[in-house]
């Protein structure tokens, strides 16, 4: 209950920090923050999928579908960017809805590989069909959003700081929605499906429908993230959304820890910041990354979010406090495939 009391002030503190942050950053770090926020949305939406116990490899391709959808609508159909972005997200959600018919005939490993095949097929079609996808070079000169505020004049959204705030607002709202969803009855049912799908079915849960629902909603937000990305950087190409990017998302989610809402967010923030810190190491960077991954699997089986608990347990152990409880916490089976609520 102590945590609940602390939650509001710490959220406010976080919000203030996020709002003040860009002024303390260098120019290129502001861009980094925009990317980071976008990836935060990607991994958080991925977690909704993981809540039902399924891990997909199509998430980043659907992020790309959102980017392509939004970019094409803005460039070819002349949609306002404000309209194109949610429409792009809907494109991603629509593709996910179509894919859910074949894909959810499978589960577990089969679903993982099936989703991978579907994603690669979609991505290859972008490289193959030059019209309208632009082939391997993708789409360039994607417009940024335009907004004129009375008294302030047009807001330059191509500049990092305004776009940072736009991204912060959209990602913030999206995270709030995802969090609400997870803690609603729908989240409870999704979690139940993950634990025991047959039991959930036996009390009347249409598991296919809920899995598909999680997939479609997750894809909507992935698509939204893609749209946010492409309207800032002005370009979308197939290579940005390839398996390598998907593997990184998987890593962020799992190393962060899928058991809590904050887990994947912690994962992407910590690992991306570390990655920037290791820039000097250049070609050695992926190796360092690989070592961190393996170390995390061994020493942090419940993810980075479990770290404070582990440290506390360790400190308690050092102080000689009866180890009954802490020992249990540390010995908990390393069940990574098990998102728990909260």
């Amino acid at each position, binding site marked *: 209950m102590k945590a609940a009391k602390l939650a509001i002030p710490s959220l406010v503190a976080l919000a203030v920090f996020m709002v003040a942050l860009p002024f303390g950053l260098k120019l290129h770090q502001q861009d980094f923050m925009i990317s980071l926020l976008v990836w935060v949305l990607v991994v958080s939406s991925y977690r909704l999928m993981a809540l039902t116990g399924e891990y997909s490899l199509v998430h980043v391709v659907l992020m790309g579908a959102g980017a392509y959808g939004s970019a094409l609508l803005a460039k070819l159909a002349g949609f306002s960017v404000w309209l194109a972005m949610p429409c792009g997200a809907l494109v991603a959600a629509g593709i996910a809805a179509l894919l859910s018919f074949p894909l959810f*005939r499978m589960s577990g*490993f089969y679903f993982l*590989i099936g989703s991978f*095949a579907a994603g*690669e097929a979609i991505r290859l*079609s972008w490289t193959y069909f030059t019209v309208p996808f632009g082939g391997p070079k993708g789409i360039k000169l994607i417009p940024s959003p335009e907004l004129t505020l009375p008294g302030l004049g047009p807001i330059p959204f191509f500049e990092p700081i305004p776009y940072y705030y736009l991204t912060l607002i959209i990602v913030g709202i999206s995270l709030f929605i995802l969090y609400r969803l997870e803690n609603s009855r729908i989240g409870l049912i999704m979690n139940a499906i993950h634990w025991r799908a047959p039991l959930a079915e036996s009390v009347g849960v249409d598991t296919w429908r809920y899995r598909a629902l999680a997939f479609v909603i997750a894809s909507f937000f992935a698509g939204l993230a893609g749209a946010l990305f492409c309207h800032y950087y002005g370009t979308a190409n197939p290579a940005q959304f390839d398996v390598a990017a998907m593997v990184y998302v998987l890593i962020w989610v*799992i190393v962060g820890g899928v058991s809590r809402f904050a887990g994947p967010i912690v994962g992407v923030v910590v690992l991306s910041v570390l990655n920037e810190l290791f820039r000097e190491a250049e070609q050695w960077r992926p190796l360092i990354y690989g070592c961190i991954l393996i170390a995390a*699997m061994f020493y942090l089986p419940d993810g980075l979010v479990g770290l404070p608990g582990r440290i506390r347990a360790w400190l308690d152990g050092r102080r000689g406090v009866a180890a009954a409880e802490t020992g249990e916490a540390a010995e908990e089976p390393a069940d990574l*495939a098990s998102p728990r609520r909260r």
Partner: protein
Amino acid sequence: MEIILQTCVNALVASAFFALMAVGLVLIFGVMGIINFAHGELYMVGAYLVWYFYASLRWPFLVAVLAAFLIVTVIGLLMERTLFRPMRDNPLGGLINSIGLLFILQVLAVQVGGVGLMKNVPPAYRGSLELLPGVAIGNQRLVALVIAAALLVCIWYFLTRTKVGWALRAVAQDRDAAALQGINIDRISMLAMGLGAGMAGMAGALIAPLTRVEPYMGHGVIITAFIVTIVGGIGSLSGAVLAAVLYAFFHTFVTTYWNGTIATMLGLLIMLVVLIVKPTGIMGTRVSE
């Protein structure tokens, strides 16, 4: 007519490599339940070792291939002991560990061989065998084909005709039941990992003179291996071989008569259809509930 025959010859060579990769992947997944994402990198290491032993140190080609096979087998055994065994009840952990290893092996390859152009591995067997007028197979490919096929036959014999092979298949069928019958799961896992890795290393070693030897060469291969594995049925070794042959012929013919990107795209779609219609693959028997 010549084109059809030449395409068949091309496809046959591709089949052997697909089969080596896929059977190894199936062994590892079947016995340990782990998707080894670093499988393509084991193949890469095999190729680099041949480059080093044969092209740099001037060892005889076949000796270099054998050395590569053995070294990658040992790497596989070490992977089982250090990365996969502690993750036995955590398949996702195993997957992530294999991704970590993938990064490490790629960087090491860059450090050892640099980037830029592919490593130079001249063919050990020059010239080509003209099967018919206009239908030829390079001698290097012929040797690779023969060795790969021989290895596959050995593996098949080992798995079906020996007691250890039987135990290995039993574990792949049902790990818990096999453990109850007194089969040592640790030993079988090491065996599967060693064999699977060795086959990937062998594939890389044999193909080194025929393809781009570079740090990222495993990437495309693993995708093909996944397709073949799924189409063949994840638990089925004979299915993997059959699927490798079918997929190789399919891909080679579509590439020859149409386009390589289309071939890969159709391959992925076929895999998806197989997954939908028969999730256990064409030869898979295990019923998943």
